[in-house]
C-alpha cells in the first residue's frame, strides 16, 4: 500500500457498504486528491447521505473502509480515540440541518464548539459572520435556512480544516446564496492542500466548479472520476421516431419516445453507428442523471 501523503489523497473510500432493511449501499469506492473539489451526485435516496455519514463516522459501515488524511500506512501506529478526534477536527462539516441546539445564539454556538477544535480561530469566525451578515445574538431557530447554512460554513471555515464535507448545502437556497457558497468553495481550494466533498442534486452548482464527480444511483456507484471525462463520454441525441433501427435504439440510454420524436443519450464512441441526421449536443449533468436513472429503470 502506498503512503497516501505522497500521492496527496485527502480521502479514500474503499468498498463501502451498508445494509438497511429497505435500502442497501454497495461497493462505494473513490479517491479525493488534495486541492480539488469533488461533487457527489445522484437522485434523492441514492445513498449520498449514508456515504457521507460513514465518512464522518456518524454511522458504522458494514463493509469497507474510509481513510482520512494519509494514514493508511502499515507502519503508522493503530488508531486511538485521540488520533481519530484529531483527524476529525481537520474536517469542516455542513449538513442539511445544523446539529446544534436550536435555542443557542450564534455567539453561544461558537463558544460551545471552539474547545473541540485545537485550531479554532475566533477572529476568523468573527470575520465570516460579519461577511455573511449573521447577527451574533440571533438564535439558531430564528435564522433562515440560508443563514443556517452560512453559520455552519462560518464554523467549518474557522478551524483551519483541510477537508470540507458538505451535504446538500445549496438545497433550498436562492441563487444569490448558492453563488456565494460556490464562490467560497473556489476560494477554499485556491489553497492546493485543501479539498471539498460536496453532495448536491442541484447540478448547476457543480457544472463549473467541480473537478471530480462521484455519481451514485440506487446505492451503487455509477461513476467516479474527472467531471470533464464523464461529460465528454456521453452525447445527448434526439431525432424522429423512424430514424433508428431496433439495434440502434438499443444504444440509446434513457430512450424516451414521444408523439413527434425521441430523445436520450449515447456513448460518444457509439455515435458513428447512428444515423447522421440526428441532433447531437453536449449532455448536461442534469440530463446525464435523468437518462442514467431512466436507463437503469429500463434495464431492471
Amino acid at each position, binding site marked *: 500500500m502506498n503512503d497516501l501523503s505522497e500521492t496527496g489523497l485527502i480521502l479514500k473510500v474503499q468498498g463501502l457498504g451498508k445494509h438497511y432493511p429497505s435500502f442497501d449501499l454497495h461497493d462505494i469506492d473513490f479517491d479525493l486528491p488534495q*486541492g480539488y473539489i469533488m461533487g457527489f451526485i445522484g437522485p434523492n435516496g441514492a445513498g449520498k447521505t449514508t456515504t457521507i455519514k460513514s465518512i464522518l463516522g456518524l454511522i458504522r459501515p458494514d463493509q469497507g473502509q474510509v481513510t482520512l488524511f494519509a494514514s493508511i500506512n502499515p507502519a503508522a501506529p493503530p488508531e486511538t480515540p485521540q488520533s481519530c478526534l484529531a483527524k476529525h477536527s481537520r474536517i469542516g462539516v455542513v449538513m442539511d440541518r445544523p446539529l446544534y441546539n436550536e435555542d443557542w445564539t450564534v455567539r453561544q454556538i461558537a463558544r460551545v464548539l471552539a474547545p473541540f477544535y485545537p485550531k479554532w480561530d475566533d477572529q476568523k469566525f468573527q470575520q465570516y459572520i460579519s461577511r455573511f451578515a449573521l447577527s451574533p445574538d440571533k438564535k439558531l431557530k430564528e435564522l433562515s435556512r440560508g443563514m443556517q447554512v452560512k453559520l455552519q460554513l462560518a464554523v467549518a471555515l474557522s478551524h483551519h480544516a483541510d477537508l470540507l464535507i458538505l451535504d446538500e448545502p445549496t438545497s433550498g437556497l436562492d441563487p444569490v446564496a448558492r453563488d456565494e457558497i460556490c464562490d467560497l468553495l473556489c476560494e477554499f481550494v485556491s*489553497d492546493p492542500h485543501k479539498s471539498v466533498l460536496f453532495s448536491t442534486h442541484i447540478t448547476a452548482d457543480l457544472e463549473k*466548479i467541480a473537478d471530480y464527480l462521484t455519481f451514485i444511483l440506487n446505492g451503487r456507484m455509477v461513476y467516479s472520476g474527472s467531471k470533464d471525462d464523464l461529460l465528454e463520454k456521453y452525447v445527448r441525441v434526439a431525432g424522429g421516431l423512424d430514424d433508428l433501427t431496433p439495434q440502434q435504439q438499443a444504444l440509446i440510454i434513457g430512450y424516451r419516445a414521444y408523439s413527434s420524436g425521441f430523445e436520450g443519450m449515447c456513448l460518444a464512441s457509439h455515435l458513428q453507428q447512428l444515423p447522421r441526421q440526428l441532433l447531437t449536443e453536449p449532455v448536461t449533468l442534469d440530463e446525464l442523471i435523468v437518462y442514467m436513472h431512466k436507463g437503469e429503470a429500463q434495464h431492471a
Partner: protein
Amino acid sequence: MKIIISNRSDRPIYEQIKQQIRDAIFAGLLEAGDLLPSIRQLARDLQVSVITITRAYNDLEQEGFINNVQGKGCYVLPRNQELLREHARQKVEQGLGEAVDAAKAGGIPKAELMEMLDILCREEHYE
C-alpha cells in the same frame, strides 16, 4: 489580460480560455516572457474547476505557446512564425467560408463574389 467565459456556449470552458489566451498572444497583447495568472488563481477568479484551467494551460504548453516552469508559473513563449501564419490562414478560411455560404444562400454568382473580394482588397490597399 481579458479572459471571459460564456456559460451558454457549446464550446467547453477550457477551450474558450485556451482560445482567448492564444488570441491575446497572436494579437501581441501577451508577449514573450509574460507571466500568466496561476492555475489556482484563475480558477478561483473565473469560478471554474482547477482541472479546467490545468487542461487549458497543458494544451497551450503542448502547442508551444507557453512554458510551465515548475514552482514558478506559466510564461508566454516567443511567437512562432509558422504558427502565426497557420492561425491567420484558419481565420481567413473561416471568414471566406461564411462569405461563400452567404453568397450561395443569396444567389450571388461566383464571379460577382470574386469581384467583391477584389474591391474589398483594393479599398484596404491590400495588393
